[in-house]
């Protein structure tokens, strides 16, 4: 039995499990997101131990001095075996960190696992610090410092907020299925980011835009939902679009979208308003993954083609998925990030 197997048991990612990574599994004792949330910052930047699953999820579109596009990811997942925190090794909280750098022809991935309770990983709300081992994301949310290191890559970045937090769904209550599964979900999509990528070919100074997602829940997926396709798109005109499509075993999809203006005003769109259609698949890591999409939001006259910068951005981690930078063309031009789960 290795650590991987343990994690897989914990987040049952098997044929019998419900949904992707067990996110459709119902667990007793955990709190469930309720409508009309009232957030309290900076406390809510910290962990919510009475919920089963939570993440601090940062993606960034970067450019090098020669204009080469890069993608960057820094993610900390919290997963709880029980809705509480306990001292020392008795802690039921488990932490998983993913870091990645995507170049047009390479995808570097690293993963860290840790137990709660002993200080190896955790999140403190004030002053804000999220860490696992030497990977850190800390600061006051106006400015954040971020590092990650792996055997074949490392990075050090500074993030500066240039807009407000935005709340998805109904003021941060994001419904995920017709049956009412939901999560709390807010973002900071207005970070300017600058720093250095350390890659095997050398150090590369980069700048760009970053998007930080915060989401927590206990059963975010319905038991017939097997994965999702998630888009965070930044258009050249300053508007942004967050949209996701949840795949269901009955062949239908559940979609949701948030339109974010350049000054941070949001409009939420219910199921059906957004459509995302795969145009082309790519075989990576032994499976076919859609790496070119048609994304439409008729309410905002959006009809764009989203295409992976590197179609092999497969995250070969304990729980595998696809995550990488994309280009946007069509009615709106821009860039963004695409995440696809459930492609077994």
């Amino acid at each position, binding site marked *: 039995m290795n650590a991987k197997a343990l994690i897989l048991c914990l987040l049952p990612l098997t044929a019998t499990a419900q949904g992707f990574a067990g996110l459709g599994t119902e667990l007793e004792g955990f709190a469930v997101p309720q409508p009309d949330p009232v957030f309290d910052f900076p406390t809510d930047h910290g962990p919510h131990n009475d919920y089963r699953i939570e993440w601090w999820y940062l993606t960034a579109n970067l450019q090098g001095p020669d204009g080469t596009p890069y993608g960057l990811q820094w993610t900390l997942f919290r997963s709880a075996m029980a809705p509480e925190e*306990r001292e020392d090794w008795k802690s039921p909280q488990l932490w998983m960190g993913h870091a990645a750098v995507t170049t047009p022809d390479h995808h570097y991935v690293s993963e860290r696992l840790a137990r709660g309770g002993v200080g190896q990983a955790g999140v403190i709300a004030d002053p804000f610090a999220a860490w696992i081992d030497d990977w850190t994301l800390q600061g006051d949310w106006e400015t954040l410092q971020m590092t990650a290191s792996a*055997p074949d890559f490392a990075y050090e970045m500074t993030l500066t907020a240039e807009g407000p937090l935005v709340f998805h769904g109904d003021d941060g209550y994001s419904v995920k299925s017709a049956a009412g599964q939901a999560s709390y979900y807010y973002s900071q999509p207005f970070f300017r980011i600058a720093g250095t990528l350390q890659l095997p070919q050398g150090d590369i100074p980069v700048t760009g835009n970053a998007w930080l997602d915060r989401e927590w829940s206990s059963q975010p997926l319905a038991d017939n939902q097997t994965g999702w396709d998630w888009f965070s798109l930044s258009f050249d005109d300053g508007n942004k679009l967050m949209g996701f499509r949840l795949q269901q075993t009955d062949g239908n999809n559940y979609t949701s979208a948030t339109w974010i203006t350049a000054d941070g005003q949001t409009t939420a769109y219910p199921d059906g308003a957004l459509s995302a259609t795969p145009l082309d698949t790519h075989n990576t890591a032994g499976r076919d993954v859609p790496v070119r999409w048609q994304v439409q939001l008729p309410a905002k006259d959006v009809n764009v083609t989203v295409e992976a910068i590197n179609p092999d951005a497969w995250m070969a981690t304990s729980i595998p998925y696809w995550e990488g930078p994309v280009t946007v063309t069509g009615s709106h031009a821009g860039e963004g990030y695409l995440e696809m789960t459930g492609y077994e």
Partner: protein
Amino acid sequence: MTRVTLRALLSHWWRNPMQLFTLLAGLALATALWSGVQAVNAEARASYDAAAATLGEGQYDRLIRRDGQPMDQATYIALRRAGWLVSPVVQGRYNGVRIVGVDPLTAPGGIGPIELQDGTDIGSFFTGQGQLFANADTAADLPDLTVVVSPNTAPGTAVTDIGVAQRLLGKDNQIDSLLVLPRQPKTQAALDAVVPQLTRQQAQAGSDIGRLTDSFHLNLTAFGLLSFAVGIFIVHGAIGLAFEQRRPVVRTLRALGLPLRRLVLLMGAELMLFALVAGIVGVALGYVIAALLLPDVAATLRGLYGADVSGTLQLRPVWWLSGLAIALGGTALAASGALYKLSKMPLLAAAQPRALAMAAGQSARLQGIGAALLLTLSVTLMFTANGLIGGFGLLASLLIGAALALPLILDRILAAASAMARSVKAQWFWADTRQQLPGLSLALMALLLAMAANVGVSTMVSSFRLTFVDFLDQRLASELYVRTEDATQGAALIDFATPRVDAILPIQNADVQIAGQPTEVYGTRDHSTYRDNWVFLQSTPTPWDTTFAGQTILINEQLSRRAGLNVGDVIPLQGQDFTIAGVYGDYGNPIGQAVIGEDIFATLYPGIAPENFGIRINPDDVPTFLSELEAATGIAATQSINQAGIKAISLSIFERTFTVTTALNILTLAVAGFAILMSLLTLASMRIPQLAPAWAMGMTRSQIGKLELLRAVLLAVLTAMIALPLGLALAWALLAVVNVAAFGWQLPMYLFPADYARLGLFALLAAALAALWPARRLARTPPADLLKVFSNER
């Protein structure tokens, strides 16, 4: 056609059941010894592997504190936060079971060989409720804990979450060592800057049980191989004879039109069938042998090396498959010559019953060259070999070379005796013995190998025992050893014992690294116990004076050899330099050891208080002292061991080693005796044409029978005389080459003439017993059979 041919070929065996038995029994015995020994080795190795997989022993670098004490858990977190991918391990004993606590999320191998199964509750494993993994035997020793039975866990070990282990072992917030993962991140702080108190131990430097016990397994394997070689001699003889006897059948079948190719194929298939049957029987017998030997072997390994080996045997494919393979391969080897000769035989060649013997004579030259080459190689290796492979090569070339040389040497001796013989009868006896030699030489080689191995291995084991007992006398000079539970109890002991005993000698040590070798440093009190009893292999004129003065250090032979350190070299400890003043023999200890003075030890390692004490006291006063000690301080008698007890334990370990050695000795001798019996039996029927003239010229049948018996004993005596020096050379190779390679120390070689004499006697007895029946048969040959020789020219 095929069926008829097969029936004709097989009919030979039905008419000669004894030959069939020889063939099957020889092969089965050889396979049994081989697979039995392999089974024992496989079981032991599987246990080491499980231990290695559980603890990552030898696979990963480790970080430990320089002073050998457990580190704070915060040290671990500090390293992780500094970018070091390390994983914590906590170890200790609970109810005699080794508890290993790991963090599965960071451990490089997870939690070792344990597999997820029913009853595994990840939640309770992780959250400190206490779920342990252990094999069934070990689980029985932990009745008050939740143990999941997992057969792949190392024997005597329970694996659990680090939090549970800390609680069970009373090591809250403590970590014994950190495994360093092989791939580390690009950016990380320098180790010294984060944790100056830790030292990095290289992967191979850890006490690698597998390497330590190699020598023991090598001995076992050598025995197994030897038995197999002996068995192959038997099979070779039996097959050769059967082929000789079936020449008329072969001639007839071929004359009837059977193609040669099909005949050879059929005879080969027939033999492979026999080999398969005998192989299966042999593997079954091997299982029995292994099951009988394993408890002793396991106890020996545990006692000698601290290696936990499961005492129960599992049917592992690795050894039963190898047993079958070697039975088939051995038969093929033994039969290939006979089949080759058969295929080259002229179609209508007259059956030559003595062809086997004649062929052996013809190849004598080739054999002589081979023997000379191998013996030259072995002499070269004696001076150049270091390491286990070289040692093994030396053993093999020495044994095979000597075996090949044996018939030639015997032939020379017999020729000389023949030349000196005066009477006609004596001349005939020597000449007849000489011409019988080719037929018997395989059996005699088997006897030579068996005897030489017995002499060699028992010399080694006995030398080891003698040295070790002497060493125990020197080392365990104190009459009583008391283990206290903590520093408070230690102080109470000192207060109580000081006015009552001759001396109290605190025993305290720290685990450190010296020149990359894991080493225990002892802080030792200035006392005549050490000055009078310890024996140095090399030293300055006054090693103890300077060491007790805190200026020098004494090291054991293992450390000296492995690190290449000698008297005069300098070793740094905690930043202070010590010159080596002496190297002492330290038999049976797997790791390095060093001794410094008590005062300087206290300065260098202030955190370590002595908890074990040697006490010098009149042996008669021990019982009174112990009962008063318990009444006054609460230190139970079970916390003390008197010297006699330790010695008894050590000696009982050696007794078990002897049990194993003796059992294997007897088995190999028995196989060799069997080989002689079979050779003589088969020769007996062929020898009638040679004996008939002697009978016709007036020798009685009983005289002929007695001479036959005498001849066998004489050949055995000559073989034994050659086996003795060969065995001693073997013992030397084992002690001076194999031991140094495997253990890191050289043992003095002692001789045991009485043992050798007894062994010689056994060998003669075996030869005589083996010759008795064939001799009786010859003595009772009906005169009509002898007469037929003259009337029935073949």
